[in-house]
């Protein structure tokens, strides 16, 4: 397999805290690799070590099969989770300034169009909305025609429209064959965008695979939801796991045909039936638990 990036036994320690605990993964060229996990799982630390923003404690990071050289920063584009820009500059000036920092650069007009910045290009970058700022940050991450892009929680804090707009931009970037490493808290985002996902918790990768592989492996059961009143028999009689929540019965099954046949045979009213397929969020909660993380 031709990997663009290989991480081997990466460790990052802060005094007593082990933020990243010996993780390994590889990212193929032209794919989108997602790192998901609760707050404090070590996602941001991991990608900041790979980005060469903070030094690793130990481990190996190979880019194109070799340790990162001084040209690494010329070839990668980075969007941080929290960052700010030089103030009092317009969006267009900011793009031009950043373009000057690289040897190779993209066409500013093309970047402006891809990131939907045309109408606000003359606005001062201190005076733009959260969604516009994220689009600018994405544009800056693309300004050097990077081969590898790091997007750290790019849609955090955005409203649903802005988030979907950002997803469509990321899809355009993917279509250009760029390799992307993305962290996110939105499982829908990870499921839509990522080709491969690693779930991190307590500095370790606890599961890895394509979204479908993870769902199949860690959350095979389908959920059937019915109002309690529509079931005219005792739930003790059914051979499936179930929960009673807010006047509704949630039946968990991996064999939906058998379950539905049984409900029909017992004369159940299926008018208000809801069938929920397993998704990445179920996988995530199954693996990391439902306890609150700060």
């Amino acid at each position, binding site marked *: 397999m031709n990997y663009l990036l290989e991480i081997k036994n990466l460790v990052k320690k802060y005094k007593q805290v082990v933020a990243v605990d010996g993780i390994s993964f590889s990212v193929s060229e032209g794919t989108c690799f997602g790192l998901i996990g609760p707050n404090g799982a070590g996602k941001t630390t991991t990608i900041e070590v790979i*980005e060469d*923003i*903070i030094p690793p404690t130990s481990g190996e990071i190979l880019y194109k099969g070799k340790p990162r050289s001084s040209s690494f*920063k*010329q070839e990668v584009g*980075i969007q*941080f989770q*929290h*960052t*700010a*820009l*030089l*103030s*009092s*500059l317009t969006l267009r*000036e900011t793009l031009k*300034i*950043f373009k*000057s*920092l*690289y*040897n190779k650069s993209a066409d500013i007009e093309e970047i402006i169009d891809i990131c939907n910045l045309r109408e606000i290009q003359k606005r001062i970058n201190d005076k733009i909305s959260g969604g516009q700022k994220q689009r600018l940050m994405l544009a*800056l991450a693309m300004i050097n025609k990077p081969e590898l892009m790091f997007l750290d929680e790019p849609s955090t804090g955005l409203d649903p429209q802005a988030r979907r707009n950002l997803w469509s931009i990321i899809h355009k970037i993917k279509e250009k064959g760029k390799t992307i490493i993305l962290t996110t808290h939105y499982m829908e985002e990870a499921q839509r965008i990522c080709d491969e996902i690693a779930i991190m918790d307590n500095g370790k990768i606890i599961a890895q695979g394509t979204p479908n592989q993870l769902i199949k492996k860690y959350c095979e059961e389908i959920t059937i939801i019915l109002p309690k009143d529509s079931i005219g028999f005792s739930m003790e009689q059914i051979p499936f796991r179930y929960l009673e929540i807010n006047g509704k019965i949630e039946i968990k099954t991996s064999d939906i045909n058998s379950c539905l046949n049984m409900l029909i045979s017992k004369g159940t009213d299926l008018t208000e039936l809801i069938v929920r397929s397993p998704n990445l969020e179920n996988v995530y909660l199954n693996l990391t638990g439902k306890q609150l993380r700060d």
Partner: protein
Amino acid sequence: MSFKRLWAMFHARNLEFFRDWSALGWNFLFPFLIVAGFGMVFGGNDYTEYKVGVFPSQYDIIHSDQTDLPLRFAETRYIKFIGFKSFEDGIEKLKHHKIDFLVKAGSPSHEYWVSDSSPKGYIVEKIFKSTLLPNVKNIAEKKEIKGNEIRYIDWLFPGILAMNMMFSALWGVGYVVVRYRKMGVLKRLNATPLTAFEYLSSQVLSRIFILLFTLGVVWFGCDLVFHFKVAGSYFDLFIIFFTGGICLSAYGLVIAARGFSEEFTSGVVNFISWPMMFLSEVWFSLEGSPHWIKLIAKLFPLTHMLSAARKVMNDGATLSDVTPELAVLIFMTVLSIVVGAALFSWNK
């Protein structure tokens, strides 16, 4: 090192500064207001050094023809006479050092009150007593100062400019870089190929450009009003201010090298700038001060820049005459840049 990257950051910083109208205006207005203020205070005839209370009096401010105080005392320059209705009013002000001396008008024995802990009171007492003595002529021989007299404003002006440069350099480099570190701007720049040396050089060069531009505008504006006398060469003055500006900006780099707390940084900047302002002879001479104070003053670039600037402006010195000052400034610049670059951190 890439000059393209250095120029990009230099350009960006200049755009930021010149678009921040409030900061820009203040950089021009502050030195002009100080020079104008001091020019009015020290240049006019209304300057007051001592305040003498007189009671009983119906006037708030007493002129020499409105009192029966000894005429030679009442006509002494730089003393303002303030009237009080009663002794109680006057003594209250004297106790709180609102006035330096209190005298009873029309008293045959010339009764007066003075605080023994007040240096100004001590001087006024001496003046008061001397004006009561018989007028003895030729008791001392007054000689005139030969050559061009240096007006106070001409002595003060380089100090005000240098002080403005110091504040602008320390805050404009030290504080701004720390604020950028805290906000994450430096982190974003660190994700690009920009090197620390390129970034720091661009900040110093941008600050120098801003300092000299501000200096030029303030000089021109103040000169229109006060008509400064420059005995030496303008080019030599430019070289001195340029070297001093680089040195002060490099000092700012040391402050900016670490830390992300704006409060802490503002404390450090104040800790450095206030002693530098007071001990670099911006406002007053250190002649007669203890040796250790003079030694501390030598650690400050402002002292050397100001010494050289005054020599050129007031005494007509040339660059070769101020070589020691320039050499110290260059040494301090190199040292500060080396220390600042070695300690510099992009991240929190």
